[in-house]
């Protein structure tokens, strides 16, 4: 048979790639062969590579490949991911001014700003921790203020493996708000979510309005892990994240693997990307 006859009518999709072997069968080709045909596209889909890797995510959709502060997609790290690597989405909730952003800033950058502005702008961070034999990469979501008028999108807690509910120990109102968030998470969130209650601004002992005892009792009743923190002095900040990392459930079978994040593929990572496709 002539090559013409064997050619598929949608061969235009694969124009360069279709080949026949000696017996005249069509040999399926690799995508890379015709990739250059479509220079107009900026989109590369990166399926999550190893299934071992995916097995580690149980609570939440597969990891985002985009990292936050660091800019372009962090694909290389994908290649090194082994058995004990976990990605975990972590959300922060709490009253305005309780110190959510300050806690993240302390944890991610080791900084503290006396006049931290109400959160606008970068509200997505990532930080990796080594815990025992595993590494946990936290994807940290700050609220961006949507909760102020009770308008937080459910997407915010969707797939979150952990939540830190923050209140300010100098404000009883902020403690009351924290309890509301706990209720909301119990209703909406993932039932296996690891929840931490953080009484922040522990350095302001002389202005304290919420006793540690009161908060501890509440936390115990609700199955939360409790700690008092200070983003200012750094007390208990890293420890809180470590403790969460330790408590994250390991190696549960993935409910639904294989989601992918769309990224604008940077040139230098083309190799890593093609190994995934």
């Amino acid at each position, binding site marked *: 048979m002539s090559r013409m*006859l*064997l*050619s*598929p*009518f*949608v*061969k*235009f*999709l*694969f124009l360069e*790639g*279709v080949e026949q072997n000696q017996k005249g069968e*069509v040999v*399926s*080709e690799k*995508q890379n062969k*015709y*990739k250059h*045909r*479509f*220079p*107009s*596209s*900026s*989109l590369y*889909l990166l*399926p999550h590579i190893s299934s071992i890797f995916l097995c580690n995510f149980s609570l939440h*959709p*597969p990891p*985002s490949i*985009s990292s936050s502060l660091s800019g372009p997609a962090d694909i290389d790290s994908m290649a090194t991911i082994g058995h004990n690597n976990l990605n975990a989405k972590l959300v922060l909730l709490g009253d305005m001014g309780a110190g959510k952003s300050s806690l993240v800033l302390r944890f991610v950058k080791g900084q503290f700003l006396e006049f931290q502005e109400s959160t*606008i*702008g*970068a*509200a997505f961070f990532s930080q990796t921790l080594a815990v025992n034999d595993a590494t946990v990469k936290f994807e940290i979501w700050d609220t*961006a*203020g*949507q909760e*102020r*008028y*009770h*308008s937080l*999108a*459910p*997407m*915010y807690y*969707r797939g979150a493996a952990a939540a830190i509910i923050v209140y300010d120990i100098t404000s009883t109102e902020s403690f009351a708000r924290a309890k509301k968030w706990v209720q909301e998470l119990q209703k909406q969130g993932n039932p296996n979510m690891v929840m931490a209650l953080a009484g922040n601004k522990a350095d302001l002992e002389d202005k304290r309005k919420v006793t540690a005892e009161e908060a501890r009792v509440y936390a115990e009743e609700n199955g939360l892990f409790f700690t008092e923190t200070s983003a200012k002095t750094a007390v208990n900040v890293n420890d809180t994240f470590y403790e969460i990392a330790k408590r994250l459930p390991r190696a549960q079978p993935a409910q*639904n693997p*294989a*989601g*992918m*994040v*769309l*990224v*604008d*593929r*940077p*040139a230098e990572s*083309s190799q890593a990307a093609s190994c995934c*496709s």
Partner: protein
Amino acid sequence: MDEEYDVIVLGTGLKECILSGLLSVDGLKVLHMDRNDYYGGESSSLNLIQLWKRFKGNDKPPASLGSSRDYNVDMIPKFMMANGTLVRVLIHTDVTKYLYFKAVDGSYVFNKGKVHKVPANDVEALKSPLMGLFEKRRARKFFIFVQDYDENDPRTHEGMDLTRVTTRELIAKYGLDDNTIDFIGHAIALHRDDCYLNEPAIDTVKRMKLYSESIARFQGGSPYIYPLYGLGELPQAFARLSAVYGGTYMLNKPECKVEFDEEGKAVGVTSEGETARCKKVVCDPSYLPNKVRKVGRVARAICIMSHPIPNTSDSHSVQVILPQKQLGRKSDMYLFCCSYSHNVAPKGKFIAFVSTEAETDHPESELKPGIDLLGPVDEIFYDIYERFEPVNEPSLDQCFISTSYDATTHFESTVMDVLNMYTMITGKVLDLSVDLSAASAAEE
């Protein structure tokens, strides 16, 4: 709330949320309100309880369907072209980081009473019964022409000016039969009716190229992708973008009455006795019913099933296009099916939609050919919704109203509407091609 904003956006549908995000990123002070207590307006995804409230007037879905929370049923179902404009906007705005996608298993077409796979690779094409061998040979020549066609390179034009030559004339040159034309026009170029035959061929050629580029993005069985947890995630993701750039969000605001000055210019929005002032109002048609007109209606059926659509190789996500000619109708009918594999239903359940531009007042009988392809269903809801478009003059009243999600539920037209509105509001053109240079840098 008693503040002054550059823009107040009403309704949190996808279009409004994309605009809100783009405007906030531009540094404008945005207040975004919705009368509902959930995001998404018409483009939300509902859980079972919400679905029952909306279509059955009660909130008691049968327990046999599983947990309400496990359902995310799109109100405007559609798949995204892997290489389409919406994807470009997602990447341009970096909203992709909030979303997870999965490829759609297959695209099918209804032909002479049967459902056939639209071939996604050479092997499938070879086996496909959609065309005879000689027709395949003729079609191949046409596909090669389309593949090589480059608007800016006259050598690829074979002496034709595709902005003048009609699609009918172009296809005639290749001697394709009506069946093939139907297939190309509806299953690949994704036209909704046959008007394209008399229109300049350039549009069809571009659509075919888009299809092939999208299919080449991944070695899946279709050119489509779809977000985990349903399309309702999209407006939420853009709303977060807006909030991250300082946009203020208020859901559950009743009334949202737009206030005008003596000249008829929008000056603010009142809700619950408080008025927020603004320079411009952006909204969906439901917030300014006096400034829109009805342009059509969509008939649809929403079904919950316990099996995939028959004859689609057990695809857990699939589209079936029923070209109008195959049904003796004026517009195409679409089946759309998604399942637990995209986290829109509990394990073992499938959500199927049948939709078309309504031609009668009886959606049940009109949609029958599509519903017949589904097999037994656990639950079915019929619905007709009306589509509106704005009739106001935004330069006079400062009201920027989106067009209803058109019958096509077409992201391309959705995004075009958004981009046009963005230009009207800001006087600027959003340049999505900036992404393209990054892409060429990524070439091997």
